[in-house]
């Protein structure tokens, strides 16, 4: 017997045909993509959110900073830096996709699996729209001069 035949390798011929059939049946397109966004968002929120929350929301009540450090002029000063604008966009976009993915999986885990198409549209929809709004407010509007009256 020619020892390159599939006779003694049970998987060889079947693997590709099997995999094709199975792939046709259920391979997902959405999951890897949203997982990638979720992971990116997770990095952003894990590394950056604690300090941002402290600075922008908790330092003043804790008495560490005077109130004007989170006032209008201080904020305008920060927005002068394009890097801060990108930073804000990353914070908002990352956290929205991260939270949307987690909430969707919590709902699926709680048993609400049949409404998955609904969760996908609502949750990732809010995340996408929020990210686009952040893109507009942080970058498109002031840096590129684009105006969308319904968002202003």
């Amino acid at each position: 017997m020619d020892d390159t035949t599939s006779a003694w390798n049970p998987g060889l011929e079947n693997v590709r045909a099997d995999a094709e059939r199975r792939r046709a049946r259920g391979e997902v397109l959405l999951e890897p993509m949203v997982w990638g966004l979720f992971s990116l968002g997770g990095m952003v929120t894990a590394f950056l959110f604690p300090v941002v929350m402290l600075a922008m929301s908790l330092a003043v009540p804790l008495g560490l900073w005077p109130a004007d450090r989170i006032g209008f002029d201080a904020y305008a000063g920060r927005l002068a830096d394009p890097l801060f604008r990108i930073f804000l966009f990353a914070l908002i976009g990352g956290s929205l996709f991260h939270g949307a993915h987690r909430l969707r999986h919590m709902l699926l885990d709680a048993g609400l699996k049949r409404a998955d198409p609904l969760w996908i549209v609502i949750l990732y929809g809010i995340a996408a729209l929020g990210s686009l709004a952040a893109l507009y407010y942080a970058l498109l509007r002031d840096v590129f001069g684009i105006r969308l009256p319904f968002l202003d």
Partner: protein
Amino acid sequence: MPRFLPYTSKRPAGWWLRNPRYLLFQAREVGGILTAAYGLVLLYQLRQFHRGPSAFEWFQAMLQSPPVVLLTFVVFGFIMVHALTWFQSLARAQPVALTKRPMPWRQAFAVTVVLWILVSVVVLYLFFGGL
């Protein structure tokens, strides 16, 4: 011939109360969702800025009111749990091979925490004028 009747049962609703790791997992999930909540706050704050000083200061005053501040502290607690468990997950999974062999996870966790502190300090000085 006796009938074949395997016994099946559903997952109990309080499964996550059964051990501290499950509880931490649920807290992590809630923390992840709450980051999106704060993300929406940041978005709205940005929008209010564009509407002018009075709109912005109104929103800031609302955020600094005692009940909201209390809520913010609670959310911050969850966000810290989320951050630390995220670093732990990175350390456990080590999905990007930076060393020849996977590091012991506690070591990888320590490295990640140090990195986080560094990043936080940089952000504090770069965008918020330092301490």
